């Protein structure tokens, strides 16, 4: 019968092959899904994965959305991957994203209508601190009271959603907004408008910061003692303890960094693509970034590629919605399937399939 036999060493070929395999299986199964919905599966897959690049009318707009959507995913996933490698499960990045946008946005609104190139950096710092503060709640509760960080960080997402609603109907509501629950526009004032650097690919300043931070994260994880301690904690918590690693510090650092990056992503979103704070501002990047982190093998380069791929499914999904009437939810199913299949085929990284005769 077929048996799984542990490999002596994790297969590095498989580590890179399985994400590609997972995407391929998702395309096939997604095709079945679209067929079940009465669509031509080949056309649907082509629209999602190819049309953003080649379509004559929609192509230019689609391409300009690529980095706009990939930027926040990459930034958040980079932070999350650090924690995931240490076995610290921050799954409330969505909440930290929202709180970062609120904190940074509030600074911008407090300074309104200030002018100067220092405004946006100040807002970015406030955004990062806002996200970090929100992530430190599960960190402190974990360290002090042994509370599960998964559940606490997740609960705080719903608290953050409600806090956003309270802010845009209360203190941060635009005085010129005719009573709508939304803040002033950040993009209509130069000082708070995130500059666009290369329009055709949607590269705004936030994307550059994200890429710089990806490199910084790589250096920290591979070349710095802290990165080594984080990896050691994830692979063998006992060995880490003997080596003198303080688990409380690791929890605080992992949650703090991932919260700060998610908060920064929120600030870039609100001062750029979204333009203002509304209750519809969060679109689930914090959750999709979890898929990006895993699909990218918790590795910076992998995360950049996975972020671009996931952005592509968002954009292609919008095209499919437009031209075939495929509902937006189908793309979420698609993204969920990708993580499922990745986790399933990942078995081949650490195990090999062998044929063993039954010993009786």
């Amino acid at each position, binding site marked *: 019968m077929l048996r*799984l036999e542990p490999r002596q060493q994790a297969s590095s070929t498989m580590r890179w092959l399985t994400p590609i395999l997972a995407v391929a299986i998702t395309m096939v199964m997604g095709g079945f899904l679209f067929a079940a919905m009465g669509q031509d599966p080949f056309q649907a897959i082509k629209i999602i994965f190819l049309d953003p690049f080649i379509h004559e009318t929609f192509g230019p707009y689609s391409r300009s959305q690529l980095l706009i959507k990939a930027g926040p995913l990459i930034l958040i996933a980079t932070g999350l991957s650090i924690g995931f490698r240490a076995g610290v499960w921050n799954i409330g990045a969505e909440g930290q994203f929202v709180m970062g946008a609120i904190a940074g946005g509030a600074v911008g609104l407090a300074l309104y209508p200030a002018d100067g190139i220092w405004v946006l950096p100040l807002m970015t710092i406030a955004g990062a601190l806002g996200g970090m503060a929100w992530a430190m709640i599960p960190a402190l509760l974990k360290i002090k009271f*042994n*509370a599960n960080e998964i559940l*606490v960080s997740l609960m705080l997402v719903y608290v953050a959603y409600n806090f956003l609603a*309270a802010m845009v109907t209360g203190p941060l509501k635009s005085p010129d907004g005719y009573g709508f629950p939304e803040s002033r526009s950040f993009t209509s004032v130069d000082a708070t408008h995130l500059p666009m650097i290369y329009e055709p690919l949607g590269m705004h300043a936030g994307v550059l910061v994200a890429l710089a931070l990806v490199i910084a994260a790589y250096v920290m994880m591979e070349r710095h003692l802290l990165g080594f301690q984080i990896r050691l904690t994830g692979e063998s918590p006992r060995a880490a303890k003997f080596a003198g690693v303080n688990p409380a510090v690791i929890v605080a650092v992992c949650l703090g960094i991932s919260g700060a990056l998610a908060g920064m992503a929120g600030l870039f979103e609100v001062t750029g693509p979204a333009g203002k704070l509304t209750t519809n501002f969060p679109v689930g990047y914090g959750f999709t970034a979890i898929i990006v982190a895993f699909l990218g093998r918790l590795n910076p380069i992998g995360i950049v590629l996975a972020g671009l791929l996931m952005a592509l499914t968002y954009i292609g999904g919008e095209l499919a919605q437009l031209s075939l009437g495929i509902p937006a939810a189908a793309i979420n199913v*698609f993204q969920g399937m990708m993580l499922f299949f990745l986790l399933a085929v*990942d078995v081949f990284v650490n195990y090999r399939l062998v044929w063993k005769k039954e010993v009786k």
Partner: protein
Amino acid sequence: MDFSALNPVSLMVSLMIAATPVLLAAVGELVVEKSGVLNLGVEGMMIIGAIAGFAISVETSNPWIGMLAAMVAGAVLALIFGFITQFLLSNQVATGLALTLFGLGMAALLGQSYTGMKPPSTPHLDIPVLSDLPVVGPILFSHDPMIYMSIALVAGVWYFLNRTRGGLILRAVGENHDAAHSLGYNVVMIRMGAIAFGGACAGLGGAYLSLVRVPQWTEGMTAGAGWIALAIVVFASWKPWRLILGAYLFGGVTILQLNLQALGIGISAAYLSMTPYLITIIVMVIMSADRRRASINAPASLGRIFNASH
């Protein structure tokens, strides 16, 4: 402020209705965790149950068939999780998250044409004399059958885990899967059974939400109820009876804040809506704070991967 508008009897009744979906999901997850598996996909299984139950009830005009369908749907989804974690040995945390993300998307997709519809109503118990008693009647004797079912399920799970051989085996698998394996028990199949049971319970909880509690289908309607169920299992220290306390506490806070919103006490509705989540965090922190007690009650093999060929 006019608190006289709050009728304690009707508050109590709506509290029980609000608590039941979470209680159903939590009792299922408790069995799963007792077998040593951490399934974080409760939210996904609940919402799939919510739409499956709603859709089938509308199509058949029978809420009971709908609830049955919800249990099947929840169990099927859970078995996908089971297959990937138990046979393909994947990380349970990540796979549970995948289940939630997938379930939320799938439910939204399936539910497209059911938004705004009304489900067939679920009949209530009506016992002559007893149901007509003042105060006691509405609180104890005139609910829909599912509320009694949920309490009975808790009792049944307690009995199974603590008073039967099967329950002992299930707990043994959860405490030390290697030892259970060497005694000849089929760890993987026992866990698959527990996972399917957990999925069915979560699905039923979701269906109760869309058929009785709300009753309507809206996208993302579980709003974290599945995660709260997970937190309640921790709060209950993996003891079935305490689940009722946790779920009813949550139900109480939910109903109280909803009524305060309706009264308009001058606090923004958004702040009041936070309270169920904040209370959940607080009670979970209190229960986890005593590390020794927490580690005695938590199943020792929780979340660990089992491979017989090791």
